[in-house]
């Protein structure tokens, strides 16, 4: 549920900066949106903050540090990141092309839906970890989600997004294991997506046959994930024929 929000000059600036930079937790961002949708002053602050961010690189200001740039590349690469450049360069090598098929363009969507109706401490850890996830800082998200699970978080969202964060952080081996943990829980809302992304992780490791076997376990009841899985399976066959 959204909370009301103070709107004075100081908080407007701070809120807009943090909103544009995606540094707000989900609930706080929603509260801000609930407010600014009717507040011209806050809308102006959001546009102002975004104009600065858009202008900084073009003004020949130093880009984010090497570490930050790497982080942006790994995380923000709309995740094709790891695979795309390789794919472009090594197009003639089928194995590299197969590995590139393990790239992920968009991270699995997190909609900020509370894990439980009542907050528990581990849920706060989960929410805190999903902040970096939303900002495409997958190493930080993975560390936070591990902490949430260690604190007793037993929900599938934490387990699934830990696996997704590892995949997006180019830690395919760990991702394969964590997606397997999600699958070991049987019928959950994350089962189909866990299969699909586990197949992606397996492709990253060059395990084509295992990836195909994983995709073959998707069924038509999995809806859009089934369609995505079929498309990926077709691509694997296509690339493997070369």
């Amino acid at each position: 549920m959204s909370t009301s929000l103070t709107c004075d000059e100081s908080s407007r600036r701070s809120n807009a900066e943090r909103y544009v930079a995606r540094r707000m937790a989900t609930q706080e961002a929603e509260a801000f949106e609930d407010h600014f949708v009717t507040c011209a002053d806050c809308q102006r602050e959001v546009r102002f903050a975004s104009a600065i961010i858009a202008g900084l690189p073009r003004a020949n200001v130093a880009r984010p540090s090497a570490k930050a740039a790497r982080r942006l590349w790994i995380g923000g690469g709309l995740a094709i990141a790891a695979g795309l450049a390789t794919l472009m360069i090594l197009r003639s090598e089928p194995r590299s092309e197969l590995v590139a098929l393990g790239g992920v363009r968009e991270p699995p969507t997190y909609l900020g839906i509370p894990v439980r109706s009542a907050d528990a401490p581990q849920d706060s850890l989960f929410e805190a970890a999903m902040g970096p996830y939303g900002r495409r800082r997958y190493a930080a998200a993975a560390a936070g989600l591990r902490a949430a699970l260690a604190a007793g978080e037993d929900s599938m969202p934490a387990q699934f997004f830990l696996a997704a964060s590892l995949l997006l952080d180019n830690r395919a081996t760990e991702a394969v294991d964590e997606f397997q943990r999600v699958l070991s829980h049987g019928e959950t809302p994350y089962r189909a997506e866990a299969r699909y992304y586990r197949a992606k992780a397996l492709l990253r490791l060059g395990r084509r046959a295992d990836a195909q076997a994983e995709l073959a376990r998707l069924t038509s009841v999995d809806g859009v994930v089934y369609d995505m899985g079929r498309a990926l399976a077709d691509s694997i066959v296509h690339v493997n024929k070369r």
Partner: protein
Amino acid sequence: MVERPAGVEGAELEVLRAGVRLMALQALGNADIADEVAQETIVRAFHSLRSSRPERLGPFVAGIARHVIADIIRARPREVSFENLAPDAEAQSQHDPLAALCDEGEKAQVHEALDLLAARDRELLRLVFFEELSPSQIAQRLGVPAERIRQRKLRALARLRLAFEESADPRHDSQLGATIQHGTAGTLKPLRNTE
């Protein structure tokens, strides 16, 4: 013919269009899709509000917008077809959707003002916006008093704000003010029937 909701004037919803569009831009980074989200949100709100009025219209409409945005995100393809890879796909993957939140005039004016700032002030803003450091953290890193960093940040932002205000498209603000002032339904754009 479009029916008017029982509890809400059409113009009241229209006032929220700019804010909803901004939400969509932040989430999706595409101006055309943001326009679609704004239109779809207003249509859905219009239909939902035929019989009753929520206590606060803003959160109600923002909630609808979040659903519309979520639907779009869910429908997006999550992998790139191998055959359809564009030559500039890498560049596209690093495109900053934040740039879509403001218009070209605003960006250009702020860009110009940024060029006029001292290099150390640009670096300060970079640390604030890219490295996400607070003034205290920056002060610690640079070994200067935190208060000095705060003052430098405020001064730099004030200069940029001046440039931004000079360039601001009056349409962004006047629509809200004018509609509230006149309170007419005359500004309501034709609604697309989604049923």
